[in-house]
């Protein structure tokens, strides 16, 4: 066999000088530039390209577009290996390696297909029956084998080496589809001055015009119009771009396979680009898809859609078979029969109608095509390629030798996008098809999508829709419609032929759903189309049932004794065709997956060997490797440093809010549970906020800086929500308050200096600033300037229980202040500490923090009930509802193991001692740490009736670690219960 034996000598939109070599299951073959993988395979006479999903039946190429159910192949290898690519969509490039799927040991000899045994094992509803029935346990046994036997290709497990992009674009009119209607619409709207984007999923524009010969009036029209479009600056044409979803606000999601048609994208170029198109008007010209016919063994390789065959003839100069039978129930396949005959094939046309309409008959005039009317397919011969067709017809019964069968079962408009926003398609009996229902303002449809199948009618409807979309007066098209060789399906629906003949009648080729499966579903009561779909998996493949939905609906409708519109359609949801997740992610992968925030001192931490931990968007220093080989050793050393000497920690991540105005004190008095009216200038106070529902929201210290100015700090986690909440209250609830809130989180760097030597470090680091206890007592606040001009804000507050200060400075000075403190602190042994030590210190001191402020705790749960003052404040009414004041609530306690070496872990469950560790227990550990002060683990926990249990023993169980530790319930303050250490100094 020579090279590309099925390639015709003339015609086609292919580049005969551009020979492209590729391999199919290791066999070296070649195609031409401009080929799809499918056209190249067909040019080489290859029809058998895969095994079916469940039954491992041999399958061939069925279509020439995105509706392809069969020809799913794995492209490339290594990290770029991509399964389930439609051969009819993939463009051929030189060096492409292609493998078939779901076959073993080989495509021609597949063990899974032997004896058709799988078909009895896997009927409709197989998964449901196995899951729900008495065989449920056996499923565990079968599943791996079944998953291997039934399936598609395997994706790579390596990281995607390619880059993807996302883009936003705006237009007045988006035209989806570049068939005759879409081209006319884009020209009309573009000519009227609208900003137009035209998207076409294929590499070439033209839609059905591509099924016309290159030497034809249709081709001249196509190239002339495309040249006109290219000359309009206000029209942008995006080919290889699929509009996959239509969303609220006339936003269309589209994916451009920019460099997916080459082995590797050029350097710096994305493989795919996801577009978000914001459209004034969306004009859908998405065309229609041909339906196959139902008869026994209608899945054999060599059985193809008639329109696809005509496209292969004229777009790719490929003759898919030399002895062809065309089986049709309408007129639109007659041109295929004629053109096959002209290309040299022996052609028989089997029309299921009693006689061929005159217009159809004329199409065959002068061609050697044998016409058989009132035809039925009785039997298909050939397994790996169709060999013969036995048909009955008006004049009897005939066996037709053939190597190609073209089927034509009418057309289904592509209503998907028109239905994405919930619009229901309408059944049009004269078309035997669904068309878009009423579209909302700003959307319209044209061409074959609305049943205008004839080229001239499609052009006319596109032109008018394009002008209307641009808001221009509607006129006739300025160009004549070309004569084409195509024929519309013809008047009225043909009586739908009953599926007959021997063998399995496939409705959904991709998911191996047969007419018998549909009947089984009906018998078992799955009669709504949505149930039918899920029970049989009809239409649930990667092709979304583009060729099978209407045939399946028609079968179910006839079983129900109803018409198709009563039976209805399933729901159309995005995406129209599969979209690579990489394209949707764009550049938001790896470190760009989410925003990362760094403190002003971040680089210092990194240079000094800090390990970082994520806290929301923030990267915080977790511990410093200098202080220990691992976190467990380092944080203990860092805690000890604070307790015995002095340490410092970066607290720049705290939320900071500037609160100003004559009513600022009143405002704070309303949002915090405690009192704020008497806080003097120069003092800070710890405050707690509730939500309206009475649960604790957030805590922090707020300082009075001036007569009308306060400096609020929030937790790192709630900085954003607290800010929004304060703005909400001021704008909606209390507009009468003269208060302005401003987030200053990013304006201030913050450092906590803690330990009995902390004051001496400050005195050394901040020359000219009085840090004596008289000027800066506990809870004191000072704005000051160092002798050299460095501005600082000093708060004497403590999270650890030690004498401690928070020092703030404008962010730009953050690193300078950090290094200055470190330098000045060197004689005192100052060392930085990370968040692990910060957390351990606060556990020792029993300060509630994030793990306890989990949105489910009340003031009383946290032991803070005494803070609430007798005044109206947010959340006060609902915090007093019965469920929040019940005595059995889980409340904060401390835990310590009876045996000093036993571990306590955050997340462990607390059970009454001596009872089985089942269920959820009576509480859980919120935070745990090793206490260097006490020499054993300690934990904070929320336990039912906790405060009443001090002294009790409980079991602290961590089932995931297989641990159960006996512990004693104690007060949640492990060190310095009288709070003396904040004065201590050494």
């Amino acid at each position, binding site marked *: 066999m020579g090279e590309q034996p099925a390639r015709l000598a003339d015609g086609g939109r292919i580049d005969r000088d551009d020979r492209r070599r590729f391999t199919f299951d290791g066999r070296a073959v070649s195609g031409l530039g401009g080929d799809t993988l499918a056209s190249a395979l067909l040019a080489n006479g290859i029809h058998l390209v895969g095994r079916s999903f469940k039954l491992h039946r041999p399958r061939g190429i069925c279509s020439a577009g995105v509706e392809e159910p069969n020809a799913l192949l794995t492209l490339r290898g290594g990290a770029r290996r991509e399964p389930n690519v439609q051969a009819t969509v993939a463009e051929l490039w030189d060096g492409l390696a292609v493998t078939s799927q779901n076959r073993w040991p080989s495509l021609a000899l597949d063990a899974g297909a032997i004896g058709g045994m799988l078909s009895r094992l896997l009927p409709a509803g197989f998964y449901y029956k196995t899951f729900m029935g008495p065989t449920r346990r056996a499923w565990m046994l079968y599943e791996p084998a079944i998953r291997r036997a039934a399936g598609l290709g395997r994706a790579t497990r390596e990281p995607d080496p390619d880059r993807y992009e996302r883009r936003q674009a705006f237009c007045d009119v988006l035209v989806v589809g570049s068939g005759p209607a879409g081209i006319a619409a884009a020209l009309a709207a573009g000519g009227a001055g609208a900003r137009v984007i035209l998207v076409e999923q294929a590499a070439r524009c033209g839609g059905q015009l591509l099924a016309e010969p290159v030497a034809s009036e249709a081709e001249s029209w196509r190239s002339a119009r495309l040249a006109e479009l290219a000359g309009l600056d206000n029209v942008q044409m995006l080919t290889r771009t699929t509009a996959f979803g239509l*969303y*609220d*606000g006339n*936003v269309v999601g589209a994916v451009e396979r920019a460099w997916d048609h080459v082995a590797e994208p050029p350097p710096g170029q994305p493989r795919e680009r996801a577009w*978000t198109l*914001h459209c004034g008007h969306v004009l859908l010209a998405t065309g229609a898809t041909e339906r196959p016919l139902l008869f026994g063994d209608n899945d054999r390789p060599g059985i193809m859609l008639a329109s696809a065959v005509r496209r292969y003839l004229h777009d790719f100069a490929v003759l898919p078979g030399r002895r062809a039978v065309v089986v049709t129930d309408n007129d639109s396949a007659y041109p295929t029969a004629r053109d096959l005959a002209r290309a040299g094939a022996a052609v028989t046309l089997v029309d299921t109608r009693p006689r061929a309409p005159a217009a159809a008959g004329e199409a065959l005039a002068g061609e050697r095509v044998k016409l058989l009317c009132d035809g039925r397919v009785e039997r298909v011969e050939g397994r790996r390629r169709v060999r013969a067709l036995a048909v009955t017809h008006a004049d009897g019964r005939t066996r037709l030798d053939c190597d190609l069968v073209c089927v034509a079962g009418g057309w289904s408009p592509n209503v998907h996008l028109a239905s994405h926003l919930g619009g229901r398609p309408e059944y049009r009996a004269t078309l035997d098809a669904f068309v878009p229902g009423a579209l*909302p303002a700003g959307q319209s449809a044209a061409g074959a999508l609305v049943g205008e199948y004839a080229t001239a009618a499609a052009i006319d409807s596109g032109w008018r829709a394009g002008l209307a979309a641009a808001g221009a007066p509607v006129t006739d098209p300025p160009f004549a419609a070309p004569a084409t060789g195509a024929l519309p399906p013809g008047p009225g629906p043909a009586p739908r032929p009953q599926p007959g003949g021997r063998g399995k009648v496939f409705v959904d080729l991709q998911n191996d759903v047969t007419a018998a499966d549909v009947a089984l579903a009906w018998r078992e009561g799955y009669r709504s189309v949505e149930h039918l779909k899920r029970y049989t998996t009809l239409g649930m493949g990667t092709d979304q049932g583009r060729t099978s939905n209407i045939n399946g609906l028609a079968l179910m409708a006839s079983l129900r004794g109803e018409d198709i519109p009563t039976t209805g359609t399933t729901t159309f949801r995005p995406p129209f065709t599969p979209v690579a997740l990489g394209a949707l992610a764009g550049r938001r992968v790896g470190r760009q997956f989410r925003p990362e925030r760094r403190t002003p001192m971040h680089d210092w931490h990194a240079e000094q060997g800090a390990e970082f931990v994520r806290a929301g968007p923030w990267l915080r220093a977790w511990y410093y490797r200098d202080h220990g080989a691992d976190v467990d050793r380092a944080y203990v050393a860092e805690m000890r440093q604070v307790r015995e000497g002095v340490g410092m920690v970066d607290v720049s991540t705290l939320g900071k809010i500037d609160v100003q105005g004559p009513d600022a004190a009143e405002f704070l008095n*309303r949002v915090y549970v405690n009192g704020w009216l008497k806080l003097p200038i120069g003092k800070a106070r710890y405050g707690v906020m509730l939500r*309206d*529902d009475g649960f604790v929201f957030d805590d922090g210290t707020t300082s009075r800086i001036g007569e009308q100015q306060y400096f609020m700090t929030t937790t790192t986690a709630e900085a*954003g929500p607290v800010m*929004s909440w304060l*703005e*909400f209250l001021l*704008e*909606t*609830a*209390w*507009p009468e308050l003269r208060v302005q809130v401003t987030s200053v989180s990013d304006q201030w760097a913050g450092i906590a200096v803690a330990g009995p030597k902390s004051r001496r470090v400050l005195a050394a680091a901040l020359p000219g600033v009085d840090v004596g206890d008289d000027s800066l007592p506990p809870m004191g606040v000072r704005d000051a300037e160092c002798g050299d001009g460095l501005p600082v804000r000093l708060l004497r507050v403590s999270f650890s229980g030690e004498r401690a200060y928070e020092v703030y400075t404008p962010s730009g000075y953050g690193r300078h202040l950090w290094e200055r403190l470190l330098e000045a602190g060197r004689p005192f042994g100052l060392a930085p500490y990370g968040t692990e030590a910060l957390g351990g210190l606060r556990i020792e001191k029993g300060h509630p923090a994030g793990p306890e402020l989990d949105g489910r705790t009340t003031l009383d749960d946290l032991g803070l009930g005494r803070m609430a003052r007798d005044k*109206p*404040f*947010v959340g006060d*009414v*609902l915090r*007093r*509802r019965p469920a929040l004041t019940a005595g059995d609530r889980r409340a904060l306690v401390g835990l310590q193991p009876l045996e000093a070496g036993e571990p306590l872990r955050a997340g462990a469950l607390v059970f009454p001692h001596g009872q089985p560790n089942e269920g959820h227990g009576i509480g859980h550990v919120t935070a745990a740490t090793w206490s260097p002060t006490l020499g054993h683990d300690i934990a904070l926990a929320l336990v039912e009736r906790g405060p009443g249990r001090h002294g009790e023993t409980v079991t602290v169980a961590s089932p995931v670690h297989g641990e159960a530790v006996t512990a004693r319930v104690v007060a949640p303050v492990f060190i310095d219960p009288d709070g003396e250490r904040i004065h201590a100094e050494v």
Partner: protein
Amino acid sequence: MLRIRCPFCGDRDHAEFSYGGDASVERPPLDHDSREDWYRYVFVRANPKGRHREYWQHVHGCRSWLVVERDTGSHAILGVESAAGSLEPARDG
């Protein structure tokens, strides 16, 4: 995707905004002591299909709280105003 015409910043993508709940419920005054009324304000929602007044905050813009009237069936935005009411909206753009 929705587009919301912020009275201060103009027509913007909804990704700039954050949803803030039902604006048709009336918040009791702070010193109002009826647990029942606060319960209704915090928890009871009509959840209508159709016109709905709701709070949105222009968090990635001017940070104003807005009252947006939206059709929960069609997602059509029927009107946008400042939640504070008294502020003078800027011109579009």
